[in-house]
């Protein structure tokens, strides 16, 4: 009787052990896989940034080119070009704010957003111009605001291991 119950207990013990051990082995494999995944976080952040910057640049490039043409010919068209720039930059800033950057580029991302906001404010002011001459008078200040943005972009790209944004804003 005791032998029978002893054998039964041993069987139960094996079941209990296996119910812990098998999932533990599976979890151990998952944890080993998690290490390289976690190590790849910075590469994924770089990709997140690129996924924002490339479409934003693609959206801005024709608007900037159109503005360069329209600022001498049509006030309404030039204002529309500026409006499109504001939309593209606002969208970029909103999405950039959702990325949690590593410690090195993180403050520069905040500075970039701040510089972009100043630029947007300036463009909105420019859009209130009544004449083409008045509109063009903002160009120098626009270039100065662009330079601040580009400065932060250069640092962020450097920290993320990206090449400089040659010919593009972001």
């Amino acid at each position: 009787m005791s032998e029978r119950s002893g054998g039964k207990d041993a069987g139960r013990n094996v079941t209990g052990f296996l119910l812990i051990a098998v999932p533990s082995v599976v979890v151990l494999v998952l944890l080993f896989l998690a290490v390289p995944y976690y190590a790849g976080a910075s590469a994924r952040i770089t990709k997140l940034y690129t996924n924002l910057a490339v479409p934003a640049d693609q959206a801005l490039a024709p608007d900037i080119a159109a503005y360069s043409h329209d600022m001498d010919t049509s006030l309404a068209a030039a204002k529309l070009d500026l409006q499109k720039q504001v939309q593209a930059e606002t969208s970029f800033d909103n999405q950039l704010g959702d990325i949690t950057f590593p410690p090195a580029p993180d403050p520069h991302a905040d500075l970039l957003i701040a510089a972009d906001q100043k630029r947007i404010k300036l463009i909105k002011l420019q859009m209130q111009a009544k004449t083409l001459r008045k509109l063009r008078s903002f160009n120098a200040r626009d270039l100065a605001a662009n330079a601040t943005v580009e400065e932060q972009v250069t640092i962020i790209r450097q920290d993320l291991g990206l090449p400089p944004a040659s010919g593009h804003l972001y």
Partner: protein
Amino acid sequence: MSQRDIVQEGHYPYPEPPYTEGSYQAGNGYQEAPYREAPYPADDYPEAFYPEYEEPEQPKPKARKKKSIDAWMAKQSTNLPRFKRRSIALFFLRLPVFVPWFFILRGWLSLNAKDVLTLSEADVLGTGGEFFLLACVSITPFITLTGARWYAPLRRWYGIFFALIGISDGTTAAITTDFDGGIFGRLAGHTFLVTGFLIVLMAIPVLLTANTPAQRRLGTYWKKLQKLTYVMWAFLVLHLALLDGFRPFDGPQGDGDPVFHQRFYQAMAISLPLVILRLPPVKRWITETRAAGQQWKVWCAIAPMAALYVLAFAFVINEEFFTGLQVLTLHPPAN
């Protein structure tokens, strides 16, 4: 001859009690019970939010070591002699329940300034409620695993505050979120909202009966009612599955670890060891292994799942603090 007559004549009708040699001396009158007193009074609400728990068998060889943790916690504190160590530890372990409300308070007081409640209340109160429900159902496996019972009252405490946080989450969501369909739409306009709303509805009777008078009044029904906790647990996992799906988050959110931030995966990682440690064969194996003085085997076997559990909880806490600070500083996410 009746049984009473036999006893009166000195013929005890039952087998002799297992007194050790020399412990019983005829004629000495009252004999002290040969077992020790419990180191602290039993939990007043031992089964609140924990309906199925059965006292595991207390294996004799290791019983002294197991009790020593509880006994140590039952002693007066060295630095604060007016309080027991257990009371001090429980006091600090009870405090985190106020964290979600601390984070959301500014959003409430500012009447949803900058849409902080619209954008983040579910992340703060929902994650807070999730944390304390999972903490509540973690207590029993911890007892199974360690044999210590001094933290058993936390089960009821975390359960009660899970319900209160859930109710405040539902109320805030009904007022501030921007789903179509009025209050009903905001509470149950999507499948994931329906599951969340049902969790809150189920939490109400469990909360109202999580006390001794209700336990006495309801009798055997009380235990069945408290088993709703497990239904809520299952609904929580379903709620998160419907909310986040099976894929990592899309878009630019996050810090480059989208899989770790996936709330359904987090809930599964936490729930897996808790479910396994509730299985009777597993409980039996742990008890017997500990009784054989081989607790290390238990720790080795459970270590990977414990690591996953801690990792998942770390990301739940990270989510709570990240979104909580956004609300506290009135800087909600853009979307």
